[in-house]
C-alpha cells in the first residue's frame, strides 16, 4: 500500500514537471516576451501598438468575423444534415458519414487549395462556367475563407447534433403531438431545446478551430488577415530578434480562444439530457419531391465537404509537366515524392509515431492518476490539461521558439521540438479518454478480483487494463491522425531537415506545384484513413470519437 502511494506521488510530481517544462514555461515565455522590449525592460508598448495600429485592430475584427462566419456556416450545413439524417430515411447514410469523416480528417489548407483549383482566378469550374457566359468572382477573400470553413467544420456540428438528436426520446415528441402541437412547433418547442446544448457546444468548437486555423486564411485570404496569419507574419519578420509583436498577437489570440473554450466547456457540461433509449426516434420515409430534396441537400453537403479530397486524389494522378497539368493520367507526382521527398514522408511518420507512443504511455498513466487518485491535486491537473485546448497551434509553435531558443535546453531545429509540440497538444485528449474509460469501469470489478485473491495492482493489470486497452489503441490511432496532419505549430518549428508532410504540402501549394501537393495530400489521407479504420476496428464505428 505504501509503495503504491509513493508510485502515484512520483507520477503526480513527474506530470507536474512535464507540464511545467512543456506547457507553463513556453506559455509563460510568450506572455513575458510580449511584456518586455528589446532591451529587456518591462513595457506595455506592444499591447499599445496592437490596440492602436489599424492593421492589428482590423485583423482582430477579421478573426471574430471569420470565427462567427464559420460558426454560422457550419451550423447551417451541420444541423441540416443532422436533422435530415436522423429524422428521414436517407439512402446510403453510412456513405454520407464516410464523406463527413473525409472532410474531418483532410488538412484544411488542402481544402482551400482545392477550391482555388475549382473556383480560383484560373479555376476549372469557373472557366467552364465562363464558357456558358456565367461570370462568377474568384473565391478569394472572406467569402472563400468562410465557404471552406463551413464545409470543413460542418462535420463537428453534424456529428454532435445528430448524436443528441438520436438521444431525444420519441415519447417526448409523441407526447407533444398528443398535446396538439404542429410538426413545426414540435421541432421548435421539443427537439430544438433538447439538442440546444449540443448545437451550442459544437458551434463554439467550430469558432475555436476556425480562429486557430492558419492555412486557409493564408492561402485564400489574399490580404484578408486574421490574428493567426498576423502572428505568423510577425514571427517570420522578426525571426532572430525578440519577436515581441508575434507573442503579443499570440496572447490576444489565446485570450479570444480562452473565452470561447470556456463557453464551450460550459455548454457541453449542460449537455445532459439522456433519454432512456427505450423509445428510440424512428426515421420517416419521405415521399415525392420532399424525398428528392432531402437527398439532394444532404448529398450536396457531403460531397462538397469531401470535394477537396476528391479533387486532390484526382489531381494526384494527373499527368504533369513541371507544375503544369497535362491531359491524361500518370504517376509522376507520386514518383517525385518517392525520389525527392521520401524523407518528408519518413519524417512525418516517425514524428507522429514517436509522438503517439509518448502520448499513449504518458496519457494512460496520467489518466489513471486523474481517475483513481481524486484529490485537489488531480483536479488542478485536470484544469491544467485544459490549457493546450485553448492554444492555437501557431501559438504553441511561437511559444516553443520563445522557450527553447535559448537557455538551458536549446531544442530549436530538432525533431524533438516538433514531437514535443504535438505531444503536449494531444496529451490532454488521451488523459481525458483514459480517465473517462476508467470511470466507466465499475469499481466492483477490481474489488471482485481483490476478494478472489489478487493484489490491488494485479487486479488492475488483469481486469482494468484489458478493458481499457482497446480504447487506448483507438485513441492512439486518432491521435496519430491529428499528429500527422498538424501544420501550424510545425510550420513555425521546422527546419529543412525536419520538414513534415503538411509543411511540405503548404510550401508546394505556395509554389504552385499542385500535382505534387495533391499526391502528398493523398498519401496523408491514406495514412489518416488507415488510422481511423484501425481505431474503428478497436472500438466499433464511432464517428463521435473523432471530435
Amino acid at each position, binding site marked *: 500500500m505504501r509503495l503504491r502511494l509513493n508510485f502515484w506521488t512520483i507520477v503526480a510530481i513527474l506530470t507536474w514537471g512535464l507540464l511545467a517544462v512543456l506547457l507553463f514555461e513556453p506559455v509563460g515565455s510568450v506572455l513575458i516576451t510580449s511584456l518586455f522590449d528589446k532591451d529587456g525592460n518591462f513595457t506595455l508598448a506592444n499591447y499599445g501598438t496592437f490596440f492602436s495600429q489599424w492593421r492589428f485592430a482590423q485583423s482582430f475584427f477579421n478573426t471574430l468575423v471569420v470565427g462567427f462566419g464559420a460558426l454560422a456556416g457550419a451550423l447551417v450545413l451541420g444541423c441540416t444534415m443532422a436533422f435530415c439524417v436522423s429524422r428521414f430515411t436517407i439512402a446510403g447514410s453510412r456513405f454520407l458519414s464516410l464523406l463527413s469523416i473525409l472532410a474531418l480528417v483532410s488538412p484544411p489548407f488542402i481544402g482551400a487549395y482545392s477550391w482555388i483549383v475549382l473556383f480560383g482566378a484560373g479555376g476549372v469550374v469557373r472557366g467552364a462556367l465562363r464558357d456558358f457566359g456565367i461570370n462568377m468572382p474568384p473565391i478569394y477573400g472572406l467569402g472563400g475563407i468562410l465557404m471552406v470553413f463551413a464545409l470543413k467544420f460542418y462535420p463537428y456540428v453534424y456529428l454532435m447534433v445528430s448524436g443528441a438528436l438520436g438521444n431525444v426520446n420519441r415519447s417526448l415528441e409523441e407526447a407533444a403531438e398528443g398535446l396538439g402541437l404542429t410538426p413545426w412547433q414540435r421541432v421548435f418547442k421539443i427537439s430544438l431545446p433538447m439538442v440546444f446544448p449540443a448545437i451550442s457546444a459544437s458551434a463554439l468548437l467550430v469558432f475555436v478551430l476556425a480562429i486557430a486555423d492558419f492555412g486557409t486564411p493564408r492561402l485564400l485570404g489574399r490580404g484578408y488577415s486574421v490574428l493567426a496569419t498576423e502572428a505568423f507574419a510577425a514571427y517570420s519578420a522578426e525571426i532572430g530578434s525578440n519577436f515581441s509583436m508575434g507573442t503579443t498577437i499570440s496572447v490576444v489570440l489565446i485570450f479570444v480562444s480562452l473565452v470561447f473554450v470556456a463557453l464551450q466547456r460550459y455548454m457541453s457540461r449542460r449537455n445532459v439530457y439522456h433519454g432512456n433509449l427505450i423509445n428510440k426516434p424512428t426515421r420517416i420515409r419521405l415521399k415525392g419531391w420532399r424525398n428528392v430534396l432531402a437527398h439532394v441537400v444532404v448529398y450536396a453537403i457531403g460531397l462538397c465537404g469531401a470535394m477537396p479530397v476528391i479533387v486532390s486524389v484526382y489531381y494526384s494522378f494527373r499527368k504533369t509537366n513541371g507544375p503544369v497539368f497535362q491531359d491524361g493520367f500518370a504517376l509522376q507526382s507520386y514518383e517525385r515524392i518517392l525520389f525527392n521527398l521520401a524523407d518528408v514522408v519518413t519524417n512525418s511518420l516517425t514524428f507522429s509515431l514517436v509522438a503517439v507512443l509518448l502520448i499513449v504511455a504518458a496519457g494512460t498513466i496520467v489518466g489513471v492518476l486523474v481517475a483513481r487518485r481524486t484529490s485537489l491535486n488531480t483536479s488542478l491537473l485536470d484544469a491544467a490539461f485544459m490549457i493546450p485546448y485553448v492554444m492555437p497551434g501557431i501559438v504553441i509553435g511561437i511559444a516553443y521558439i520563445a522557450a527553447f531558443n535559448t537557455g538551458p535546453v536549446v531544442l530549436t531545429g530538432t525533431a524533438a521540438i516538433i514531437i514535443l509540440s504535438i505531444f503536449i497538444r494531444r496529451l490532454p485528449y488521451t488523459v481525458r479518454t483514459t480517465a473517462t474509460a476508467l470511470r466507466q469501469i465499475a469499481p*466492483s470489478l477490481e*474489488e471482485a478480483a*481483490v*476478494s*478472489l*485473491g489478487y493484489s*490491488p495492482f494485479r*487486479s488492475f493489470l488483469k481486469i482494468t487494463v484489458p478493458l481499457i486497452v482497446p480504447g487506448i489503441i483507438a485513441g492512439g490511432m486518432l491521435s496519430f491522425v491529428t499528429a500527422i496532419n498538424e501544420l501550424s505549430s510545425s510550420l513555425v518549428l521546422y527546419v529543412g531537415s525536419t520538414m513534415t508532410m503538411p509543411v511540405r504540402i503548404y510550401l508546394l501549394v505556395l509554389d504552385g506545384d499542385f500535382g505534387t501537393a495533391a499526391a502528398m495530400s493523398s498519401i496523408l489521407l491514406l495514412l489518416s484513413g488507415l488510422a481511423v479504420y484501425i481505431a474503428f476496428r478497436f472500438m466499433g464505428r464511432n464517428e463521435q470519437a473523432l471530435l
Partner: protein
Amino acid sequence: MAYLEIKGATKSFGNFTALNGVDVSVERGEFFTLLGPSGCGKTTLLRAIAGFNDLTSGDITVDGADLRRVPPHQRDIGMVFQDYAVFPHLSVFDNVAFGLKPRKVPAAEIRTRVAAALAAVHLEKLADRLPAAMSGGQQQRIGLARAMVINPRLLLMDEPLSNLDAKLRIELREEIRDIQKQVGIATIYVTHDQEEALAISDRICVMSAGHIEQIGTPQQIYGNPQTRFVAEFVGTLNRLAPGAATDTLVAGLGVKNAALWAIRPERLALAAPGEAGVAGTVTRYTYLGREAHVHVETAVGNLAVQVANPGMAAVSAVGDAVTLRLDPASLLAFDADGKRIGAEP
C-alpha cells in the same frame, strides 16, 4: 467464541458516523442477514469485513484471528456484488476459475471444481460464452459460483438480488439458500427487503442509523420485536391512537409507562355478528386475492385488519359498520424510547 466476531465496529466518514459500535457474531455455516433501511450502514459493515474500507475502530476476528491486519486480497472472503461485477472480457468458465489461479490449484482440479460450481448454479451449458449479453439472473449466478468455488472462509453478499425482477428474486434466493446449506459456508447477506430476509436467514440483524436494533431468528424478529423500529420495519403495525378509549382497552394489562400501543393487522379479525369487540366503520377495502385488507375507523384509531382467504361473500363496503375482534394480549407496548415493554427476552 463465535466463528466471526465483530466487536465495537465504528466507522466515521469525516464527522458522519456510519457505524456506531456494532457487535455481531456469526456461527460456522450460518446464514446471517443484515437488514435495514437505506443508509443504515449495511454496506459499510460488509465492506469493512471484506477489507475494502477499514473500520475507524473495533475488532473483527475470524476463527480467533484478527482480520483487520490481513490485506483484503489475503482475507479469503468470497463476495457477491449487487451489480454482479462479472468480468466482461472473460468467459463464464474463466470468470469462475479466476479466483482459483492465485491459489495455485492444478489445472485439472480447476476444471472439475469450476464444472461443479457451474452445475450448482445451473450454468454448465454456458461455460464458454462471454457474459456480456447474459441476463441479470445468469450474471448473478456467475458471481455466486465465482465466489463459492474458492471455498472462502466467509461469503458476503450485498443486495445480490436487488437488480432482478420479483419472480427471479424469489427463485434465486431459494437457490442461494440451498447452495449455502450444501456447502456450509458462513454467509452474511445484506438486504433491505424484509420478506427476503425472513425467507432465507438463520438469523437476522436489524440495523438502523449505524447501530443494531435487534439480532434474532426470523421468528423472533417478526414475532417478538424488541423495539418499535423493528416492529415497524419488519411487517406492518397498527398504532393505537392515544386517548381514553385506548386506556380503557389496555387497562387490564397492568403495563405502565407505555408511550405507544400497537397491533399487527393479522392479530385483528372481523367479529361475527353479535360478538363483543371494538366497533368501527370500514373506510377502505383492498382485495388482494389471497388476503384482503380492511381499514376500519374505530375509537382507538384507524386499524388495518388482514383477512385471510376472503371468500366471495366476505366483501365489506366502505361505510359498513363492523366489529373487530381484538385480544388485548396481542397488543405490543413501547416506551418513550421505542423499547418494547414486556417483551420476551
